[in-house]
């Protein structure tokens, strides 16, 4: 167990190293990305440029710059932004994390429950109009770009129908900390939760239905029926339980990516200052320290989530355990 943990840890370090080197190289290979002129300000004289280059160490060889950046990111944790001068990126990411966690956890609950409901209902009624309708709804959910959906929802709830009884409860955009005002927190997040969840409800509902329907052609499902179990017990305890592999795989990837800042468009459109919005700003400003911090943060979650998914596989399917 300790060995496996160590191995996984080693792999994680390798992944982080690979990503950070790639990001670093790509950044400096991009014409115009050199931060000197952007830090120095427009129309900076060559002397000012030289001063900035020296202050920030851009005159050092790339490996040295990389090493210095990694040290100040992971060891001293005082890496500062190239765009917001003096801003320490590590605390900034950790300050943004609760917002993202609030958004993603809520959305995940919504989408897991809704997609299981949708997948099982469609399977139970497979071939019926309800089944068809749910699957079409799912596809519509998938085909709606989240940013567009968010803007339309904002258009309706914040502008067009803001004063109607239906949406007068909707607070202005922005985040309210859970610790400060739980009700306000819920009100502010409930629409972003649903918006973010819609895409995933579509994907997961459809994937689950496909796997469940496939499960119904398995012998053990017939056995379960032959045992005289109720239809719902057959569906949930036998069908669902064995059809979660795809679901769990995707969930691991999606959840990790979102917690790591992948919900950037949702955060941007609803004005939530989470890791996603930070990532969005880092990328649109090409702010290498902040890019590095957010990417490393998200990579940690991706690796962690995949490790968790592997553990879940084992819990879900004992056959995988014995495969060693």
């Amino acid at each position, binding site marked *: 167990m300790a060995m496996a943990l160590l191995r996984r840890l080693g792999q994680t370090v390798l992944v982080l190293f690979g990503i950070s080197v790639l990001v670093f190289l790509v950044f400096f290979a991009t014409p115009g990305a050199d931060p000197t002129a952007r830090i120095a300000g427009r129309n900076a004289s060559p002397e000012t440029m030289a001063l900035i280059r020296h202050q920030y160490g851009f005159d050092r060889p790339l490996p040295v710059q990389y090493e210095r950046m990694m040290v100040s990111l992971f060891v001293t944790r005082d890496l500062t932004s190239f765009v917001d001068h003096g801003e320490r990126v590590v605390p900034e990411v950790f300050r943004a994390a609760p917002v993202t966690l609030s958004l993603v956890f809520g959305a995940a609950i919504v989408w897991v429950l809704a997609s299981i409901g949708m997948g099982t209902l469609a399977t139970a009624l497979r071939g019926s109009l309800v089944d068809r309708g749910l699957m079409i709804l799912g596809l519509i959910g998938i085909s709606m770009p989240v*940013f567009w959906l968010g803007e339309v929802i904002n258009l309706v709830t914040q502008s067009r129908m803001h004063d109607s009884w239906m949406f007068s409860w909707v607070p202005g955009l922005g985040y309210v900390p859970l610790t400060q005002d739980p009700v306000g927190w819920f009100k502010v997040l409930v629409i972003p939760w649903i918006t973010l969840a819609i895409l995933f409800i579509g994907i997961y509902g459809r994937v689950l239905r496909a796997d469940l329907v496939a499960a119904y052609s398995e012998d053990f499902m017939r056995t379960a029926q032959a045992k005289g179990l109720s239809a719902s017990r057959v569906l949930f305890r036998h069908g669902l339980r064995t059809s979660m592999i795809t679901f769990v795989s995707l969930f691991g990837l999606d959840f990790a990516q979102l917690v790591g800042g992948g919900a950037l468009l949702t955060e941007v459109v609803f004005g939530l200052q989470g890791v996603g919005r930070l990532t969005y700003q880092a990328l649109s400003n090409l702010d290498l320290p902040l890019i590095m911090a957010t990417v490393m943060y998200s990579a940690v979650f991706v*690796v962690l989530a*995949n490790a968790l998914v592997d553990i879940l596989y084992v819990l879900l399917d004992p056959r995988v355990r014995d495969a060693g």
Partner: protein
Amino acid sequence: MSATHPATRRSGPWTTAMTTLLRDRAAMIALAGLLLIIAACVLAPVYAEDIAHTDPFQSDVAATVMVHGQELAVMQPNDNPLHLGLTPLAPTWHPSAYLLGADSQGRDVMARLLYGGRNSLLISAAATVLCILMAAFVGIVSGFFGGVVDAALSRLMDIMWAIPVYLFAISLSIVTISQGLRIGPFTIRSDNLLLPIGIIALVYVPYAARPIRGRVLTLRRSEFVLAARGLGVPRGRILLRDILPNVSSTLIVLAPLLMALAMLAESALSFLSIGVQAPAASWGTIIQDGQGLIYTRPMVAIAPGLAIVLTVLALNILGDGLRDALDVRETSRRRG
């Protein structure tokens, strides 16, 4: 088990599949819908030139158009005292002119929608196929061989999944501005559709590969694979005959989803001048244009969105039909 073989041998599997498919009414309707969409996109020039009489690649702020006997400005100035803003023509619901209205540059949205479909269908279909192939390869190899191979491939997937694609896209867009991307003797210009196809395919490989790997991990321990191994069947043959058919249902479900995602992802790349370049259109870029008009002309963003939904829907129903038709295992077992 003995049941399957006589059943498949009786008539060719392809003929059986074809007849099954042809009998599937929903699949046939979906196929007809898909062909209709493709035909409409192929015939885009006919619509633009002979019906709408418009050039969907030419911006024009001063144009006027006759609708229901009324001459309307395509870009309508707002009658506010401050002379601020300019609103494109609303949908006329009249096929001869601006059926779906104009976009922010005074171009006919319907005509652009038809032209845009060509790019969207091409890019998303190619990217999806490429992605599925790569993901199936990675997922199966990773799940089947396990051990070091699996660890290496899985961490590679982790890297790909965690990497900020947008950064790469920005970089690529700048690198390719003047001279294009040089790979050996080949130079890829930034308007080459291979770029978005390749990028999108790569981006979603981890997403599709991971669940496939999960399935294979389970299958590897399942009886028929163990039995086949016990009998000394070569690994390659097990992969092809036992594992691949079993992950195909996952693939068939993922494919239309990937297509929808690809159509949207394409627009982000296009925004950075990778792939489809202005004035050319794709459904994704029209949605992008429409986002700037959501408060005034929502149809610009809704119409391409609907086109994506319909296409993906048709493909999906067709995919289900195809799977039912090809899945000898399932049908024969039912008959038992």
